[in-house]
């Protein structure tokens, strides 16, 4: 292809956006609405994931030491824990601190514990967090073998179920997002197909006048890319502004304290990039495949 021909295709592709005025409007708005939907769900999914990761990171292993452990043995356990791979943090909690915690937990029934302070029956312990909370059961198993460790508690049973739940939410979310992405792709390419179907006569005429398939395809290709690009711009702008507004609202409304939303910057950039890429790729691809039938003249 000569350079001037390429420039011609570019020019025609851009001009077609205007030439097909109403059709362009209809397909760009279909692309925009579809990508907006996808964007909203991406943002939602990423925030839910973030929230779940936050809750998961609260899971910790309580390592109780034998009551007779001497200070240097406690030190040894701590060293062993710190050398254990996969462990993020280790916090020492003496039995006196433990009693305070228990009192807090019982609240107004704490008086039941009165008199127990002197002969405190609790044990010293370490609170351990893992890098990957899902590794908790395995890590707990290893910790159990360290000498002077009496007992290891991490909410066995409950933790596994909680992780089952988050895993399910993640899987369902992933299925939804992937499904939604495919739906968006289908709807966009379907819209483009219909608009090209409406222009099949033109394609046939071009063919009859001696145009090669690629000569016809190029401007459509560029037009499709532009349609996808234009269709992605609007939802990106709306999502950007909307997410900003949401963050502001959450920051101000105290009753939404529990919402720990992701900051704008990496999130929106990722989402925007994804939308633009999907829009443009599907725009091009949709144009190309839907022309095939009409090029056989």
């Amino acid at each position, binding site marked *: *292809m*000569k350079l*001037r*021909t390429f420039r*011609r295709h570019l020019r025609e592709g851009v001009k*077609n956006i205007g*030439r*097909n005025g109403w059709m362009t409007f209809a397909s760009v708005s279909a692309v925009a609405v579809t990508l907006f939907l996808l964007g909203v769900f991406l943002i939602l999914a990423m925030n839910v994931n973030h929230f779940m990761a936050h809750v998961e990171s609260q899971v910790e292993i309580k390592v109780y030491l034998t009551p007779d452990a001497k200070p240097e043995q406690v030190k040894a356990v701590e060293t062993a824990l710190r050398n254990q791979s996969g462990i993020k943090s280790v916090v020492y909690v003496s039995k006196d601190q433990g009693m305070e915690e228990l009192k807090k937990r019982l609240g107004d029934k704490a008086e039941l514990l009165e008199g127990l302070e002197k002969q405190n029956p609790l044990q010293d312990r370490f609170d351990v967090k893992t890098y990957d909370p899902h590794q908790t059961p395995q890590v707990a198993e290893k910790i159990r073998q360290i000498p002077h460790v009496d007992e290891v508690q991490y909410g066995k049973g409950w933790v596994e179920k909680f992780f089952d739940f988050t895993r399910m939410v993640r899987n369902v979310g992933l299925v939804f997002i992937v499904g939604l992405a495919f739906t968006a792709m289908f709807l966009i390419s379907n819209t483009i197909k219909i608009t090209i179907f409406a222009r099949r006569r*033109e394609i046939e*005429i*071009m*063919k*009859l*006048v*001696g*145009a*090669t*398939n690629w*000569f016809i395809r190029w401007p459509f290709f560029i037009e499709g890319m532009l349609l996808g690009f234009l269709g992605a711009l609007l939802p990106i702008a709306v999502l950007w502004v909307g997410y900003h507004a949401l963050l502001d609202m959450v920051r101000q409304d105290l009753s939404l304290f529990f919402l720990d939303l992701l900051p704008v910057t990496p999130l929106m950039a990722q989402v925007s990039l994804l939308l633009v890429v999907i829009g443009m790729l599907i725009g091009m691809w949709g144009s190309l495949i839907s022309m095939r039938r009409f090029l*056989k*003249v």
Partner: protein
Amino acid sequence: MIEMIDVWKTYPNGTHALRGITVRIKKGEFVYVVGPSGAGKSTFIKLMYREERPTKGQIFVNGINLEALRERRIPYLRRNIGVVFQDFKLLPKLTVHENVAFAMEVVEAPSKQIRQRVKEVLELVKLSHKADVYPDELSGGEQQRVAIARALVNRPSVLLADEPTGNLDPETSWGIMHLLEEINNRGTTVVMATHNREIVNTMRKRVIAIENGEIVRDEQRGEYGYET
């Protein structure tokens, strides 16, 4: 050079449009194709630039066997053939100028040359004043002349014209005919389907008469030949 050997064409709906056409049109000839409505004239012409494919038989255009021609090569065949379609087939979203230019862009001509040549042929068909207008803003005869201009613009070696004067007044028709004659004199093969008795009988050329899908007459310097 166009040659057909025992060509049959049956359309998918079962219509037998051509039944055993054998004909040889030499380079530089001027041929009228005449015959009643629905005789098969357009089908005969459509086979030559491969809009339609024969059900049976062999077709050669400029030495190329159309049946053996690979799909990818068809555009190159068509670039040597200018076609005036019976229904014009103008691109609705391009202006008159752009429509004619399109046929030249296809062969990747330099844009300066395109601009100049398009102006030239639009003058030949007397449509310079309509260059920037869209096809649906033209009268029937004007659309037909755009179709003629587009067929001529690349100086094809073969010109196929299907009823090119059907929507033109006699004076304009004669203008177009003189144009075609001139082009023919410069060596272009011209095949023209027509119902215009006056033209055929005045500008005497070879006449091929088709009736019911068969060639019933083939005369050098023939007459239109259907009496009323």
